[in-house]
């Protein structure tokens, strides 16, 4: 199997992979494929440089970084080593699995949110305890539809959630949303949003207090009512306001129009 086949198979499986390419120097254009288990294909020209760059690529892959690094022809990497020797420039490109979005509640807003999340590249899972509603037919755009209560979902899979991922709780049902909030708070998920009117939110805060969710740190992680204040009404408009809030949470921006703010755009 060629390097491209090995590389594309990993990307399709959503398993982490780094593609390493010589972009300047001897063996320009040669590639190597690196996964968490090591070098799985290709070569950059000699075993010395493969070993050194393979190790560095693994570090970059773990951090999800894509960048250019410089080496000597045999993988020399200290500044002194590189003074009198030709430089090899290596492009290390990390391909991480897509971020995850779990949506609780199989409602109309869920279908719209799942569609918008797919546009942004999320792997989307829809969860609801009601078998009649949580069906593939109603959510063909989701990657996975699970008939389950929140607690077992988080107990079994919560360890998979990281700061890149999002949990959106759209159930409106106290039986469902409080356990979902508890489950999400126990993970390191980057975004937790809960749907409901301001009145629903106030009542929910009381119920959360009853189960012990009172710390400022926990409450600060919960975006409720979910979404940015765009003034939209339809499920699709609401979905855009939710993903807008997810992006702003990740980047730490306050989501005001660029026209009224200054500073760097990206």
């Amino acid at each position, binding site marked *: 199997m060629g390097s491209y086949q090995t590389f594309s198979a990993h990307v399709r499986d959503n398993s982490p992979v780094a593609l390493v*390419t010589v972009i300047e120097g001897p063996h320009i254009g040669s590639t190597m494929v690196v996964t968490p288990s090591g070098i799985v294909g290709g070569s950059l020209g000699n075993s010395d440089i493969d070993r050194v760059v393979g190790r560095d690529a693994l570090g970059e892959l773990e951090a999800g970084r894509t960048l250019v690094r410089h080496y000597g022809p045999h993988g020399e990497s200290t500044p002194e080593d590189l003074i009198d020797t030709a430089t090899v420039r290596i492009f290390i*490109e990390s*391909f991480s699995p897509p971020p995850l979005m779990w949506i609780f509640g199989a409602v109309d807003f869920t279908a719209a949110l799942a569609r918008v999340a797919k546009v942004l590249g999320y792997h989307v899972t829809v969860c609801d305890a009601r078998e009649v509603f949580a069906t593939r037919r109603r959510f063909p755009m989701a990657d996975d539809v699970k008939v389950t209560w929140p607690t077992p979902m988080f107990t079994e899979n919560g360890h998979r959630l990281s700061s890149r991922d999002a949990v959106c709780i759209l159930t409106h049902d106290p039986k469902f949303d409080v356990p979902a909030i508890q489950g999400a708070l126990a993970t390191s998920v980057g975004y937790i949003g809960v749907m409901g009117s301001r009145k629903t939110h106030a009542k929910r805060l009381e119920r959360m207090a009853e189960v012990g969710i009172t710390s400022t740190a926990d409450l600060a992680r919960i975006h409720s009512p979910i979404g940015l204040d765009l003034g939209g009404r339809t499920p699709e408009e609401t979905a855009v306001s939710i993903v807008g809030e997810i992006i702003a949470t990740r980047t730490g921006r306050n989501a005001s129009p660029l026209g009224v703010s200054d500073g760097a755009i990206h």
Partner: protein
Amino acid sequence: MRELLTDIDRWQTDGKRVAIARVVDIEGSGPRGAGAAMAVNQDGEVSGSVSGGCVESAVVSEALAILSGEQPSRVVTFGYSDDEAFAVGLTCGGIIHLFIQPLEW
């Protein structure tokens, strides 16, 4: 490059030669970061993009020249700097470095 795989596979199944252009570095403002990629087949068909449409047509010309052997695989720079005054640039004023090579690995 994830989004290019389906087109690349189809072209390769059809026996077409393919070049890939990847953004390896951006200086200043740029619409797409390192890793943005575009594939071009021998007939000039394109998949993906590497900027907001500013440099794509120039990348196609470079990719076809590399596929035909007129030019070697190399880093191509677009933008405005003192030593490299390329005709094509990014409207936002940034400098974009792309590595373009035939997909023969």
